[in-house]
């Protein structure tokens, strides 16, 4: 009895305390997230506003532009004789689509085999890929150029194909995250399916791929982004401006020769490049979360 009366006020104060603590934590959370959100959006907002700046020079007196116009955008698409940006954009877009498809297929195949099948040389392969991944990629850029040249893929029309090959060929080595994910899918699913007469291939396409959708989304994003982000490989392989990818074009716009006239258009081009990626990303983000909710919990 006495015990009961004693513990009551204590638990009440604890309750009170807990609620207080939660409110403090909530406020701290929102302040932190708010500040960080500003930091994260700051450069993006700046370049967005800069793209509408009437004055296209790089270094100006005010932080945000004072006069706005669409000149940068129209200039980018109409003045195609100096830098043909629309063409660069299309080049990159085509490459990105192919790389995205091929890399998803490669990564899924390798990850499935490594996660689900046991065969001789499996460990050796995994160690081998790990070791290969430790060589710096830049090291082989020059070598890859010579190899492509020997294959006749560096002539004018073939550059797009060459870039697709270069970006997607090695993607199978990036299977580790996908395999880690597949390792958390219960093997009882596979076993049940195989008892029902599924082949390994059917298990792969009908069970593992649907469950792995969240990671496929991630992989697709990574694959699609590769050509937009890379410029070292593109710079070595695409020698003429007709074959340039968008990133090379942007790089060129900030060159000493061009920057004074092209900075405004650089900003505009940055915005335009970000749009397909952003749209794709938002679509995939939604898909990512939906599939998370539906997937089997480890």
């Amino acid at each position: 009895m006495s015990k009961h009366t004693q513990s009551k006020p204590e638990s009440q104060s604890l309750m009170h305390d807990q609620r207080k603590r939660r409110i403090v934590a909530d406020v701290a959370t929102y302040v932190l997230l708010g500040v960080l959100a500003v930091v994260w959006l700051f450069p993006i907002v700046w370049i967005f506003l800069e793209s509408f700046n009437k004055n296209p020079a790089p270094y100006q007196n005010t932080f945000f532009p004072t006069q706005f116009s669409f000149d940068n955008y129209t200039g980018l698409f109409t003045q195609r004789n100096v830098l043909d940006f629309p063409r660069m954009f299309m080049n990159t877009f085509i490459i990105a689509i192919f790389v995205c498809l091929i890399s998803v297929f490669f990564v899924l195949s390798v990850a499935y085999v490594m996660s689900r099948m046991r065969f001789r040389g499996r460990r050796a392969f995994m160690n081998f890929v790990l070791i290969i991944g430790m060589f710096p990629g830049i090291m082989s850029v020059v070598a890859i150029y010579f190899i492509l040249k020997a294959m006749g893929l560096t002539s004018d029309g073939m550059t797009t194909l060459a870039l697709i090959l270069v970006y997607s060929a090695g993607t199978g080595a990036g299977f580790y995250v996908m395999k880690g994910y597949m390792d958390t899918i219960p093997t009882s699913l596979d076993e049940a399916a195989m008892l029902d007469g599924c082949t390994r291939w059917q298990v792969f396409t009908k069970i593992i791929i649907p469950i792995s959708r969240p990671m496929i989304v991630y992989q697709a994003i990574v694959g699609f982004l590769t050509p937009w982000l890379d410029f070292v490989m593109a710079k070595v392989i695409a020698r003429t401006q007709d074959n340039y990818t968008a990133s090379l074009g942007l790089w060129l716009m900030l060159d000493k020769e061009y920057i004074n006239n092209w900075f405004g258009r650089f900003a505009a081009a940055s915005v335009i490049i970000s749009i397909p990626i952003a749209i794709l990303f938002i679509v995939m983000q939604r898909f990512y979360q939906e599939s998370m909710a539906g997937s089997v919990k480890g």
Partner: protein
Amino acid sequence: MSTVTLSQREMKRRRKLGADYVAPSPYTLKNALEKGDLFTKLSIVVFGLGNFVHKQYLKGLIFLASEVLFIIFMATAGVKNLSLLPSLGGREASSGWVDGKYVHIAGDNSVIILLYGVCTVVLCIAFVLWWSLVIRSAYKAQVLGGGKDRRAPSFMDDIHTLLDAKANQLLLFLPLAGILIFTVLPLIFMISMAFTSYDHNHLVIFKWVGLENFKAVFSNSGSIVSGRLFLSVLLWTLVWAFFATFLNFFCGLFLAMVINRKTTYGKNVWRAIFSMSIAVPQFVSLLVMHQMLQPSGAINRLLMNWGWIDQALPFFTNATWARVTVIIINLWVGIPYTIMQVTGILQNIPAELYEAAKIDGANWWQTFTKITMPYIFFVLTPYLITTFTGNVNNFNVIYLLTRGDPGVVGESAGKTDLLITWLYKLTVDRSDYNLGAVIGIMTFIVLAVVSLITYRNSGSYKNEEGFR
């Protein structure tokens, strides 16, 4: 089935691999050579003969065609490629009067000779492996198609096996071919350059020089490269990779968990905001940052207008400032990726684990250290290692932000240069391919030592089925 006595080596394998152990195939090269009949043994010379005899016509035809093609290749080009490899050619281009005409005689190009030589060697190794496969296939056809009413598997049977029990071969073929041609072959090619004199003085004809280039990198007398420079670049590379990997990981994990709290509203909005920086190509955002942080760039102007500073902050001109700046900017680039990765995994942790912990009276911290962290590390250890290696090789962030500056006059590497950007400068800007290749090999050794140790000690390598 007769009992098979295992060799000592086999027993050792079995013990070491445990559940991973896969019994060896009975169709080994040794068995084929010892127990094969006449046709199997003739398959050593005439590919596919054994398969023909046992009615595997299509397979036999493929094998035979491969042999013919290889012989034609070796006869027309292969032997010549191999014979030039030791000398790398030495004929210089010349021109002169021949039969009353002035002609230009093309000289040797050592790069081409080296490339073709390396390709031929790789092709020969591949052919030897293929040869062993052909013999084993012939032996298998002999064993399976041996009896009166036994029949060796038809081509359709083989295809069916490729979809089922041997799906690994089908699924791995293309990815592996891609890796071999566009990753391994260039690597062998580049590594071999480290032992030649292929620099800006010898662009057309060069020689094998053994370990000369390694000596140049480690001695303290070199003009372009020296041991002291190498050590300072290496140290900064490791410091950078450590901070870039672990700061990103823990900050990202923290943010993901903050967003994932039960009482945080607008989870999707917050995630979307942080994802914005992924949506903007890294290339663009880095170039923009580069512009903003210039001495007369937007940030310095803003701070000066507010009256906080009198002089421009030396973001990229002072060595320490530049180093801290790139690490911080890398947080901006990398944290959204970590959030994206960790969120998926956080949501995938079995809810039973948390419920059980709650019943047992575990508090927040205990749940975090005993369930969340082990689970995340289990899934993400390979990711962390790849991120670390990725950061050692992080060309974009450094090159686009600072280009290795601030530099020191007369040295080939600046203060923020990583091994990888140094390598780029040496090969692309200076055409010192041999020195670049040496730096590349050294980078590899550093990475190999660091990551093999961590990886082999990680849970997801030792215990793949841990969370099943």
